């Protein structure tokens, strides 16, 4: 009988100890990482006015005026093939000396960084290693490729039309 009484007491204390035990928490110190969307989630098509507003902001680093937005949106509507419409409107913008675009020298002084910045500017994400490597090598090996041609390619590629 005594054994039964003491074992009950021991069980009670063991239970208290178990409940009172707290799992040790580990804190890992890691560097802060900027999380950018990858392109797989971009499946909503930009409206024409969204496309134009964002394109203008990317090229001029300032907002498009409401009057110009209306005019360009109407212009885009007047051309059936949107690829042609977007390409020609952008091709007009790049003739404007006010657009904010790196010089060829700036691009070639650090091509890898230029590629990263271009992805962030147009696609709001970082390039994958494959993308970074390919475009860096491409620009390096083709001296006739200018920042304008790179910007034009990014702004008229399919990913730019989606968010």
């Amino acid at each position: 009988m005594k054994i039964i009484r003491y074992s009950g007491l021991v069980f009670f204390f063991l239970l208290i100890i178990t409940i009172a035990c707290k799992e040790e928490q580990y804190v890992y110190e890691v560097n802060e990482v900027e999380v950018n969307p990858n392109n797989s989630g971009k499946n909503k098509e930009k409206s024409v006015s969204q496309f134009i507003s964002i394109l203008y902001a990317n090229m001029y680093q300032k907002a498009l005026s409401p009057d110009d937005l209306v005019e360009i949106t109407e212009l885009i509507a007047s051309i059936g093939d949107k690829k042609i419409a977007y390409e020609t409107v952008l091709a007009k913008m790049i003739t404007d000396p006010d657009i904010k675009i790196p010089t060829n020298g700036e691009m070639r002084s650090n091509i890898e960084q230029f590629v990263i910045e271009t992805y962030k500017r147009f696609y709001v994400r970082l390039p994958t290693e494959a993308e970074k490597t390919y475009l860096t090598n491409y620009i390096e090996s083709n001296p006739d490729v200018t920042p304008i041609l790179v910007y034009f390619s990014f702004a008229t590629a399919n990913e730019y039309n989606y968010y």
Partner: protein
Amino acid sequence: MKRRDFIKKAALTTAGTISMPYILPTGRLFASTGSQMAGHVIFVMFAGGVRQQESMGKKYLAESQGLDIEGNIMYNMLAGDAPELKIVYGVDTTDGQPGGQPIDRILNTTLEKQGTLFKEVRYTHGGTGHFVGLSTGVSGYYGITQGLQGRPQHPTIFEYLRRHAGLKATDTWFIGNGINNSTPLLNYSAHPDYGRQYGANFFAPNVTFGQQGQDHLKGFLNFHPDEEMSRIDEMREFLNHAYLANGHEIPHLYNTDEERYNIKQFIENTFEQLDNNQIAFPPVVDNGDLSTIGYATEVLKWFKPKMMVINMFAVDSCHSNYTGYLKSLHRADHAVGHLWKFIQEEVPEMANDTVMIVMPEHGRNYESNAITDVNDWFAFDHDSDANSRRIFTQMVGPCVDANLIVGDENNPVGNAADVVPTIADIFGIKNEVFAKGLLHPEAMSLFDRI
């Protein structure tokens, strides 16, 4: 080779040629089953809503304003003398009389004499609204449940031609009077078996080359295809490949690279022509329809399209301005006359090889509304009454009978949905188009109605 072997092999070859499908460049399997009647078709949507009384009836003011003055103000298209009194539809006279000087006729022989006129055609289904009328014209199907901001539900003539006759994108053009009333949505349908990969190129040239184009397009940098553009294409191909998993793309009409460059060159050239006053506008160009026709002739000259639809619209001023309507009707006739003359005289590749079809998208009411204009003349709407379902269809060109009038008010012949099968007939793909079963059930080729 023995005679027996030769005959056997020849027979096998012949049988193989007959039974093996031929894959055309556009991917279609069989050549068209019909014979082609002409190399080019121009369909003018004489749109905005035209009353039969002032067009086919040549009644001028007699069946609208209670004035006993009749006459023909469409004397390039129709035979008959012009009104002699209360002339308001022309250009202003030198002494300041508004509209007092009728515009000189362009064609020596009216289209009525040159071709076939279906004088009483019916718009049989749905309300007489612009967009349903226009989409019926280009698709041969009354989209009576058609949303006003949606593409036609059934394939357009452009899609039939690109898919079944193997036309390329720049062979097919839709020239719109503007960008309102969903006009830019008429160059291809929302039908899942067709769509934009078979769509027509489109310009609303009064916008493309108007103030909007002057401000934001003129002077654009057209990259050379063998130099800068080849670099862009290489980088873009890589970028698109990285994004291909999503299957999304910029909505385009599957113009080839060469076609895209050609269209850009056309845009550049048109701005230059404008600066040099060399656009082939009609002799009088004082409204949007006339400038639209002028730009359309530039497209004709540059691309020599197989199929072009041109939309006019100014006569819709009739909702509130009857005098303006008469002016616009007179100018629409001027525009058609100029277009036909231009094709015959300025585009040798299309002269004598082009069929032109002219049809309003719907009519207008018999009874006026209460709005009066500067001449105290009443205006007319289009509310689906019997009169607004009365239209006409005019055809001219090779393979079209000359000086033939079909139907009259008591014996209407033709349907607003007939134009698509008629064009399919001209291009020799009528059977293929009917076989798809997507036309209005009463639609027929007008050649079969004669």
